[in-house]
């Protein structure tokens, strides 16, 4: 009698749709997947260990490089954790700009998600359309921070500098046109029978399983669990904003797709509210022990220069203790847990990356399906390896 055996296929770390350097070892029976073993660590840079040798301000650039598609969300999570530790009050204007940027970052991250997800399923045009809109957000990034991706814009106690005058107009113009572009993507995908065939019923994970795996973010909400830290555990001033939290029903790729699209529309509304709230004022807390001095005083007075030098070189000592701050990053709950022994560097910094936790469900979601479905599941989980490997 003829026997058949399964084939082991090494998918990645160089593969067009493993979104970076994810490596999946697949056991294939024909094209049906019988086993998936994710191998991670190809992008490990030791961010958590590096943080133990840096002052609190010096850690910030490392966080840009976690989820490199959403740098300001990472900045926000880390900065809020440090501010919680230091008990610093942030001025209103800085808080508002932070939320505007966090929501633009959410839009940006979701744009890359829809682009890559659609490209993996074969819809090439959506990919290029979404990157076209992302370009505007990159320009806004560049306008305020000088960098397109590694923004490093927030500071403990506020922002590194105030935003330029054209910021409001540029953001406002973008928010005006963005819903139209979302309609365009939906026109290409939501009503497309092939897209529906590929996404409905794909990558199903029940609410219980999703909770058991610790999945957060749109992937959890797509499974019908109504949890959003921005609303349920507000941070950084989110309690002042009105927005809807979309929830899916069928726990499949299509519902997660719908959830993210609604989130993008809601993000536009939050940014609009933020722009309305934006009033002139200081962007850095008046807290000389922690915050950098204003640039005028650094350039024009010896006291200012010494102050700047002290903060930049030796940082500030943090009180002994532990803090945890979770934020609703585009991909899920991003948490920073800082243990301080009273020195100017953290004793331990632990990062809870949403992608890492969400990735665990990949075998549950795509075992028994075909390679094409696995590719759709990788897309719908919206993972970023910079954050998984840290």
């Amino acid at each position: 009698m003829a026997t058949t055996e399964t084939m082991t296929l090494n998918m990645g770390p160089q593969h067009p749709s493993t979104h970076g350097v994810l490596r999946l070892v697949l056991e294939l029976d024909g094209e049906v997947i019988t086993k998936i073993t994710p191998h991670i660590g190809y992008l490990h840079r030791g961010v958590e260990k590096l943080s133990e040798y840096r002052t609190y301000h010096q850690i910030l650039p490392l966080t840009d490089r976690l989820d490199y598609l959403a740098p300001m969300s990472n900045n926000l999570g880390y900065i809020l954790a440090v501010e919680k530790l230091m008990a610093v009050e942030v001025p209103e204007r800085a808080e508002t700009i932070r939320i505007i940027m966090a929501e633009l970052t959410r839009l940006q991250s979701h744009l890359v998600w829809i682009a890559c997800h659609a490209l993996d399923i074969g819809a090439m045009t959506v990919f290029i359309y979404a990157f076209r809109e992302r370009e505007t957000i990159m320009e806004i990034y560049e306008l305020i921070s000088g960098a397109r991706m590694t923004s490093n814009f927030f500071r403990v106690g506020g922002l590194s500098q105030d935003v330029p005058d054209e910021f409001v107009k540029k953001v406002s113009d973008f928010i005006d046109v963005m819903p139209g572009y979302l309609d365009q993507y939906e026109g290409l995908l939501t009503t497309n029978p092939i897209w529906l065939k590929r996404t409905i019923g794909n990558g199903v994970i029940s609410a219980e399983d999703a909770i058991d795996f610790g999945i957060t973010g749109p992937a959890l909400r797509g499974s019908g669990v109504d949890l959003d830290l921005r609303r349920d555990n507000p941070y950084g001033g989110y309690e002042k904003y009105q927005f809807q939290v979309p929830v899916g029903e069928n726990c499949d790729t299509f519902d997660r797709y719908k959830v993210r699209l609604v989130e993008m529309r809601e993000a536009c509304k939050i940014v609009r509210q933020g722009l309305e709230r934006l009033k002139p004022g200081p962007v850095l807390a008046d807290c000389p022990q922690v915050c950098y001095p204003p640039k005028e005083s650094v350039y024009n007075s010896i006291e200012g220069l010494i102050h700047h030098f002290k903060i930049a070189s030796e940082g500030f000592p943090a009180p002994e203790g532990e803090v945890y701050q979770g934020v609703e990053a585009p991909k899920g709950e991003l948490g920073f847990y800082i243990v301080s022994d009273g020195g100017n560097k953290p004793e331990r910094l632990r990062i809870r990356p949403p992608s890492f936790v969400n990735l665990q469900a990949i075998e549950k979601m795509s075992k028994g399906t075909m390679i094409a479905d696995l590719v759709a599941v990788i897309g719908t989980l919206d993972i970023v390896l910079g954050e998984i490997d840290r």
Partner: protein
Amino acid sequence: MTASSVDIALFAAKVGLVFFVILTLAAYLVFAERRILAWVQDRKGPNRVGPFGLLQPLADLIKLLTKEDFLPSAADKWLFYLAPAMAAIPAIMIFAVIPFGAPLTVAGHAVPLVVADLNIGLLFFLALSSIAVYGVAIGGWASNSKYSLLGGIRGLAQLISYELSMGLSLVPIVMLARSFSLTEIVDAQRTIPFIIYQPLAFIIFLISITAECKRIPFDLPEAEGELVAGFHTEYSGMRFGLFFVGEYINIIVLGGLATTLFLGGWHGPLLPPVIWFTLKTLAFAFFFIWMRGTLPRLRYDQLMHLGWKVLTPLALMNILVTAWWLMLKNHM
């Protein structure tokens, strides 16, 4: 009948011209696809080489010819070398039976504008398109790479399934034209193109040739998001180029065939026949490019489902209906 030297010279000129035009057209179809996709996708596309980027195909050719001709160490050498040719040559040979214009008279000699007016032209096409499948299957198998193998299997399964519905969708055409010769099929459409009588067959044929050309939404054998590059993952340089250009020759040839079978071939008012034929063929090419800009990709089993459970039964039903209709017409 003895062929005079003038006849032979005219024939050679015709073959040479067709060969040249098809290859050039295929190269420029690649360019056109890149520009049209760019236009659809709100970007510029290749516009640097020569005026409007028109020399881009030449630059691509030079690039492909000067690249390393890589042979994977575990590959089956001869089959690996043979496969690209098996993909490209049948594609261009199919064009031999497609009439692309009204017969001309040159210096007292009648020149039919078709390379070989076979009385079984349609069967010749079906046979050759089946041979083209071997290029994909052998290329995928000989590379000795898992992605190539999966791509080859997909290609084989897909092309065999769609060959069936394609063949069946053409039976009503033969019944209407009462001939396998493409020239006679074109003549039968002098007044009304067959698309009017056979819209269903046309749709089935169109879907099947999309699968046959391995174009989105049926580009599974090379689905880059899943199988890297499918059956031609291990190919480089001009061998990859042969697969690539073979695909575009296929688009032109199958577009030409759809024109011949359903749109009345070179028949058309006002413009010269050759122009009509070219326009109709390019319209199909544009349609394929347009689809690529719009649609995502089907899954393997969904593709099989569509082929076996939808298109093939529909094609069979269409044959029956056509037969009844012809019988009723003859009895009345």
